[in-house]
């Protein structure tokens, strides 16, 4: 067994341990520790990705002395490595970009607690990505939820407390449904590890037993995770949550946390329930319909919104809708598109949140987007970042959003029944996206009518934010320009799932 194969385990344990150790460090040391750990785990995930691409197959890793159906297990393949690497990058840049604001938003003696949340969030995301055990997934879903709640309410100003309780209530509804789904699944299969559970499911399906319970399990698990990731009819907590948290937290919550749950859902579909069974059960069609509704309604809400950060949050609702539409298409190409859009969205949304903060800084921190008029001149780099993010969301060529829209359109063409609604919704939603994002961009570059611009402090050189904006832009361009190999990696990673 080569050393690289230990890396998934090392990265999870390292992140957890740094969280535990941060409880006795002061804020500054905790921050450095957390940055180091994020960088190291990202490097490890990249090594795992390289290893899996080289050997061309995935591997499982025993957590303890006991093999598959008895002990816990984690599993790493190309898709896991890629996702973990990308999540690590996004997390690192978000933490760097929002650092100054974190220091301002969080009380002095509670700084280290913020970084504990970040560390444990990282470890739970990694565990959700790598896990091969359903109950481990449940435990880490809970860690993820609590850490997310901590990240929201650590800025105890504005509406963040009421946003946090709303978030907790919705998440607990989701967790309850997910847990009862797991219990039912354990009841009919007798396994908690994904590989033997899948074999048991295949036996059950072949014998035609337990048809009703299987259907209900699929429905309940999907609905539970959909509530937690904020699919359209369950999206009420999203705007408050993303709009009032500290910038790092908004970027991480919108970019990574909801994606972690979606990744888990895809993993359960492929590795436990079996893709054919899920497609045959019509559950994907339900997800498809809600995804389409989310695509349209999220954009409409965003247009009616005046606060920039809430606007970006509503746009997240629309993007989550895209991802579920991709899953709902039920084809391999649709799944690839969904995963690619997951990456696009986590890179772009984090960029938008971080650069929006950079623009607020120079415009006197008011909520209304009109105060941003001319901010693009006062903080040029953040303006460029925001423009790039908006264009990517709209689907401008060369940027990552364009590729994912292209993938959605081509995959829609392959499934005849769902082609028309997908393409129409894609077109309408693109236009709506263009309307509200371009409005913001125009506002940024219009000359302020009064001399209010001078009143607001001209951009202090917050080099950390600038750096992270540059890195995010580069990440976005990389996803857009080198999409071919990434799409191939996703394809081969999904193939390893079976």
């Amino acid at each position: 067994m080569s050393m690289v194969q230990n890396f998934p385990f090392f990265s999870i344990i390292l992140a957890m341990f740094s969280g535990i150790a941060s409880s006795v460090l002061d804020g500054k040391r905790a921050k450095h520790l957390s940055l180091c750990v994020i960088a190291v785990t990202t490097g490890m995930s990249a090594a795992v990705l390289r290893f899996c691409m080289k050997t061309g197959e995935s591997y499982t890793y025993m957590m303890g002395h006991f093999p598959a159906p008895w002990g816990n297990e984690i599993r790493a393949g190309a898709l896991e490595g890629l996702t973990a690497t990308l999540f690590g990058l996004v997390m690192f840049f978000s933490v760097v970009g929002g650092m100054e604001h974190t220091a301002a938003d969080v009380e002095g003696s509670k700084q280290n607690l913020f970084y504990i949340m970040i560390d444990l969030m990282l470890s739970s995301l990694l565990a959700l990505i790598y896990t091969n055990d359903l109950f481990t997934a449940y435990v880490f879903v809970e860690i993820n939820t609590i850490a997310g709640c901590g990240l929201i309410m650590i800025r105890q100003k504005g509406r963040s407390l009421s946003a946090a309780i709303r978030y907790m209530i919705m998440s607990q509804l989701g967790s309850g449904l997910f847990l009862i789904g797991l219990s039912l699944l354990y009841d009919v299969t007798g396994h908690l590890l994904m590989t033997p559970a899948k074999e048991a499911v295949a036996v059950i399906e072949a014998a035609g037993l337990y048809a009703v319970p299987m259907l209900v399990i699929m429905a309940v698990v999907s609905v539970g995770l959909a509530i937690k990731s904020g699919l359209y009819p369950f999206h009420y907590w999203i705007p408050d949550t993303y709009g009032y948290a500290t910038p790092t937290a908004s970027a991480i919550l919108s970019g990574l946390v909801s994606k972690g749950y979606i990744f888990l859902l895809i993993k359960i579909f492929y590795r436990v329930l079996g893709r054919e069974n899920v497609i045959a059960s019509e559950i994907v069609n339900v997800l498809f319909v809600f995804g389409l509704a989310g695509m349209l309604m999220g954009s409409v809400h965003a247009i009616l919104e005046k606060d920039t950060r809430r606007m970006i949050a509503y746009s997240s609702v629309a993007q989550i809708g895209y991802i579920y539409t991709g899953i709902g298409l039920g084809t391999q190409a649709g799944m690839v598109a969904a995963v690619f859009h997951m990456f696009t969205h986590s890179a772009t949304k984090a960029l938008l949140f971080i650069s929006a903060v950079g623009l607020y800084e120079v415009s006197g921190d008011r909520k209304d987007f009109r105060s941003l008029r001319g901010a693009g001149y006062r903080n040029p780099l953040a303006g460029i970042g925001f423009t790039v993010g908006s264009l990517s969301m709209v689907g401008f060529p060369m940027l990552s959003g364009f590729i994912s829209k292209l993938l959605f359109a081509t995959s829609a063409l392959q499934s005849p029944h769902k082609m028309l609604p997908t393409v129409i919704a894609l077109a309408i939603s693109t236009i709506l996206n263009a309307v509200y994002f371009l409005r913001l961009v125009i506002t940024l570059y219009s000359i302020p009518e009064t001399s209010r611009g001078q009143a607001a402090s001209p951009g202090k050189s917050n080099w950390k934010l600038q750096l992270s904006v540059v890195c995010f832009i580069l990440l976005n361009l990389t996803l857009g320009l080198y999409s071919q190999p990434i799409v191939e990696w996703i394809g081969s990673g999904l193939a390893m799932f079976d």
Partner: protein
Amino acid sequence: MSRQRDDYEKSWWYRFRKWVDGEMDLLDEGMEIRVPDEMLAAMDGEGQDAARHPAENKEHTFSYDGRGIRYFRRFYQVMSVLLCLSIIFVLLWTVAYLPAFGNAGNPDNNEVSARYIERGLQETGAVNIVTGMILDYRAFDTFGESCVLFIASCCVLVLLRIDAADGNEQARKRLEEANDRLFEPKNDVILQKCACVLVPLILVFGIYIVLNGHLSPGGGFSGGAVLGSGLILYLNAFGFGKTERFFTEKVYRRLTLSALTFYCLAKSYSFFTGANHMESGIPLGMPGRILSSGLILPLNICVGLVVACTMYAFYALFRKGGM
């Protein structure tokens, strides 16, 4: 500039520009500013005026808001009741198709539980099979669970701890208000006498549960909770002055840190050796003895410490915003 069209104000471009400026909505009615016609018709004359000029008369707009919210709430409630009923119905329908209760041939009684029972004693050294399972076979879950407890206590710290060290006047005032213990009658004799008898018993019982986790029902979690409730009783009877002598936030942090660190290192060692097919080299001892079953006993003690400290910390933080 020279020539402006008469109907410029109605043109789309004008509207678009206004909308870009955020002064009106692209949709004709301006959703946030004006009230739909039916709503206006339903209101009386005074209300109509008020609704037309929301800025002038705040209270009336509020009543409109209230009505909208009430309609929305009614709709939301009906929909949620339907949703909940359908969930219950669907799950009950599922139960009808599940394997029968208490039947040995059910799918969940398979080779997994068989191996836990038949070889658990030899492989983990624990007489209590459940403890052996959660601390050895499926130890990663249990480690995650301790982390849930840890992060929850961190969140409660964020929410309720009040720091007066900065010399912040407001914080000090909040600290005084938060400590409601000050206003209570002290030295309640009945409570103190009872506590004198009960606290040692509870603590001894808790320690027994923790130490015998691998031999009898119980273990770190239940024993820790018992210990924690014993401490809470002590606190209630004798006040913070007594407990602060041996249990401050510093002690809490150090105990939790060392227990979780030991847990983390021990489990990392066993995961690492297990995955790389090496012998762990930890003796399992004679099954049934108190000093047996390898790492399970120290792990139980660690978990017990963490749980006891966390439960006490929850209570102290709820009570006075500090420890």
